[in-house]
C-alpha cells in the first residue's frame, strides 16, 4: 500500500455544553491514499462533519477543541498543535474543503473570479493578473461554461450546481493533496448530483487527489467510494472496501441501515426500521453507542465499549459480537 496522504489517529473532538465537555468525535482512525476516495457515511450527529473540520483545524473555539493524544498527519506532517499562521499555510494549499450549502458558502459580495483567485494569491503570492488567469484556468477545469465571461458574476447569479463547481474550483486552485467534501451534493437535485460526482471523480483521477467524501447517503457511497468508514454517534464502527461493505456488512448498524433503505432498483418487500433515535452526544453510555438500538445487543454491549478491531487485511469493525467470536 502506498504511503497515506492523510492519516488520522485516535482523533477525539469535544464540545462544551452545559459546563461539561462532551466528545462529538471519539478515537477516530482514518487514512487516505493518493487517488483514493474514502467515504465517511453516517447520520446526523455521527460526527462526520466535525471530523473534517478537525482536519482543517476549523473546530470552532472556544466551544470546541481537539483532545490531547489526537493526531492528524498530512503527508507525514503533524497538523494537531500547529499555530493559526502555519495552519493557514496548509489550508487551501495542501488540504482543501468543500461544503454542503453552495449558496451560503460563497461570499455574496465578491465575484466568483475574485474568490477563486483569492486562494491562489494567498498561497502562491501571484499578482492580480496572474491570479485571475489562474482562476480562469481552474474554472474551465471544473467545466463552468463560458468561464471567461462568468467569472465577473456574483454567486447569486449561478445555479446551485454551478456554485458547487465554483466551490470545487476554489478548493482545487492550489493543487491540494487531499480534498475534504462535506455532503457536497446533498442540497442538489439528483441529476445535478450526478454531474458533480462525476466531476469530483474525474478530478481525483487526473490529479491524484485523495478524497474524503462525507455523506449520509449509502447510494452515493456506492457510486464513488473506494473504501468506506461508517460512523455512528462519534465513532467509526466499521471500515471496509466499498464492494465488501455492501456485499457483507459486518457491523449490526451497517446491516440495519442497509435493511432499512428503500431502493430504487428493486422491490425490497417489508422495510426493517431501526428502532429508537440517533442519540445526542450528551446521552451516550459506557457501552457500545449502538447497543440501545441494536437487535443483537447483549449485556456486555451495554457495559463496555468495543474497540475497532481489524478483520482480515482491509476491514475493521467495532462490535463485541464480531471480535469475540473467532
Amino acid at each position, binding site marked *: 500500500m502506498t504511503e497515506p496522504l492523510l492519516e488520522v489517529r485516535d482523533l477525539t473532538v469535544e464540545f462544551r455544553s452545559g459546563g461539561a465537555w462532551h466528545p462529538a468525535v471519539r478515537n477516530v482512525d482514518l487514512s487516505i491514499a493518493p487517488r483514493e476516495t474514502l467515504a465517511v457515511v453516517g*447520520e*446526523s450527529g455521527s460526527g462526520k462533519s466535525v471530523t473534517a473540520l478537525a482536519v482543517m483545524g476549523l473546530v*470552532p473555539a472556544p466551544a470546541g477543541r481537539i483532545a490531547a493524544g489526537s493526531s492528524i498527519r498530512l503527508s507525514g506532517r503533524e497538523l494537531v498543535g500547529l499555530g493559526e499562521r502555519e495552519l493557514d499555510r496548509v489550508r487551501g494549499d495542501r488540504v482543501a474543503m468543500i461544503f454542503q450549502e453552495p449558496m451560503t458558502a460563497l461570499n455574496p459580495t465578491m465575484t466568483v473570479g475574485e474568490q477563486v483567485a483569492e486562494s491562489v494569491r494567498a498561497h502562491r503570492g501571484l499578482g492580480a493578473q496572474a491570479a485571475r488567469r489562474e482562476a480562469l484556468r481552474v474554472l474551465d477545469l471544473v467545466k463552468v461554461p463560458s468561464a471567461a465571461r462568468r467569472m465577473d458574476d456574483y454567486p447569486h447569479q449561478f445555479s446551485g450546481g454551478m456554485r458547487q463547481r465554483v466551490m470545487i474550483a476554489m478548493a482545487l486552485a492550489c493543487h491540494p493533496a487531499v480534498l475534504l467534501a462535506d*455532503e457536497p451534493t*446533498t442540497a442538489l437535485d439528483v441529476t445535478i448530483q450526478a454531474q458533480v460526482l462525476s466531476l469530483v471523480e474525474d478530478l481525483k483521477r487526473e490529479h491524484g487527489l485523495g478524497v474524503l467524501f462525507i455523506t*449520509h447517503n449509502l447510494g452515493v457511497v456506492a457510486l464513488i467510494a473506494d473504501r468506506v468508514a461508517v460512523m455512528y454517534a462519534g465513532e467509526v464502527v466499521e471500515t471496509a472496501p466499498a464492494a465488501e461493505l455492501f456485499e457483507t456488512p459486518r457491523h449490526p448498524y451497517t446491516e440495519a441501515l442497509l435493511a432499512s433503505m428503500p431502493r430504487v432498483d428493486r422491490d425490497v418487500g417489508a422495510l426493517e426500521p431501526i428502532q429508537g433515535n440517533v442519540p445526542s452526544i450528551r446521552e451516550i453510555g459506557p457501552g457500545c453507542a449502538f447497543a440501545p438500538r441494536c437487535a443483537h445487543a447483549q449485556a456486555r454491549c451495554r457495559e463496555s465499549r468495543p474497540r475497532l478491531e481489524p478483520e482480515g487485511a482491509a476491514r475493521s469493525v467495532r462490535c463485541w459480537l464480531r471480535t469475540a467470536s473467532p
Partner: protein
Amino acid sequence: MSAPAAVLPARGWTRRFRANPTSWLGVALIAAVVLAALLASTIWPLDPLEQNVAERLMAPTAAHPLGTDTFGRDVLARLLHAARISLLIGAFSIALAMTIGSAIGIAAGYLGGWFDAAVTSLLDVLLSFPTLLLGLMVVAMLGPSMGNLVIAIAITELAPFARVARAPTITLKGRDFVEAGRALGFSDLRLVVVHIIPNLLSEVVVVASLWLATAIRTEASLSFIGLGVKPPTATWGGMIREGFENILDAPWLALAPSLAILVTVLGLNLLGDGLRDAIDPRARRD
C-alpha cells in the same frame, strides 16, 4: 440533515437572561427608579410644589440634599415626584403604541398584498421621520397636556411596533404549522390569535422595553423644549430646562435630573438588551 430550525422563542431564555450580569444591572436600576417613584412621599416627605422665595437657588445642604430651584422648591422632592410622571407617561404611551402598532403590523403581515404594501411604505415614512419633530408637531397641534403627550409619544412609536410585529407575522404565516392549521380548517382569526400572536409576543415585549426608554427620552425632550406637562408639575425634562436657564449660577440644578434620566433610560436599555440577547436566536450563535 437539517439542523433544527431555530424556532422564534428560544428555549431556556430565562437561564440566559439570568446568566448575563448586565441584565441584572438593568433590573436593579429600574427597580430602584420604580421604587423611588412609588414611595416618593415616604422617602422624602417635602412638598415638591411648595415655594419658598427666601431659599431660592440654594446649593445642596442637609435640609435640601439636592438644593433648591428658582422658586425655592426642594429639588429632591421634585425629582422623586417627576419620576412618577415620566414613568406614567412612558408606560401609557408604550401600552397604546404597542397595542395599536402591533395590531397594524400583524394585520399587514397576515393580509399581505396591497394593504401590506401601503402600510409598509407609510411605516417607512413614519419610521424615518424625526421622532422628536413628530411629537413636537402633534403636541403643538393638540396643545400640551398629559393626555396629549401620551398620544403624541404613542404616535411616534407606532411604526417600530408595527414593524416588529409584521416581520415575524410574515415568517410565521409561511411556517408549516400555520399552513397545517389552514389545512385543518382553522379560521384566520384562530390562526392569528392562537398560532401567530403567542409566537411573536416575546419579540414585541423586548421591543417594548427598549422603546419605553425612548418614550421617556422623548417625554423629557418635549418637556425640555417647553412642550411637556405644564408647570408647576415637576418633570425631569422641565427641571433640566429650569436648571439650564440658571446653569451659570446653579449648575447642580441641571445635573440631578440629567442623572435621573440617564439611570432610568440606561436601566431600561440594559434590561431590553438582556432580554433580546436571551431571546433572539441570532444573538445566540456561538
